[in-house]
């Protein structure tokens, strides 16, 4: 892992898991990406379904280490970052 970059563990659920075709991945973020907003922009830059789900009108939520957070939340090395649609339990 290069200096200044973060390795994080991503998890996807429900519609996003199906759209992305995977339930998670481990990612080494490029240096300079330190927040949830930066991560989301990085993923959306993959294009296609990633852009459609993360850079369009669709609503989604993010949890870091199993707590829901806002886009300004800071990431840290080893963080478990989950991205999922608004919840529909109960």
């Amino acid at each position, binding site marked *: 892992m290069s200096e200044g970059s973060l390795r994080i563990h991503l998890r996807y659920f429900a*519609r996003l898991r199906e759209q992305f075709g995977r339930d998670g991945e481990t990612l080494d973020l490029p240096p300079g990406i330190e927040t949830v907003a930066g991560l989301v922009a990085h993923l959306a830059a993959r294009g296609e379904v990633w852009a459609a789900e993360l850079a369009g009108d669709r609503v989604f939520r993010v949890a870091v280490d199993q707590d829901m957070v806002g886009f300004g939340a800071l990431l840290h090395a080893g963080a478990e970052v989950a991205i999922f649609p608004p919840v529909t339990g109960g």
Partner: protein
Amino acid sequence: MSLPPTDIRITVQPEDFDLAAELSAMRQADRGIGAVAAFVGLVRDLNLAADVTALELEHYPGMTERALHTICDEAAVRWPLHAVRVIHRVGKLHPGDQIVLVLTASAHRHAAYESNAFVMDYLKTRAPFWKKEWTPDGPRWIEARESDQSAATRWHDIVAHTYGNTDHD
């Protein structure tokens, strides 16, 4: 005088649950309980065409239990609760099946009623469960409802007004 800690029990399971058994266990464990409010959520035909054959519930193991505990802890801060029991089912369910149980126990009925609604309203916006409907045309994910978000926000406003703080959510 401080109350003993609230007995909070959370279970996420595919199996069905028995309301009578859960109620019995709760009241036998604590003779100080004077009122128990019970909410049981059922799987219904979610669309008007009534063609839903099954409902599949996905969740985020670990975060689900953590989120439910946090919600119950928040309820226990706001109301004098003796016990809270939450059971939420996951996996494949069918119309008419029980899906969620919330029991709230207190010495008095108002705390039991109000905290029960609070737990359900927050569960619907905070606990990471997702429902997928199965129909003859295939599966489709259920979209979150704006009214669920406003129900949770309503508690924020009530608590802010009553307790003068807004840091509870």
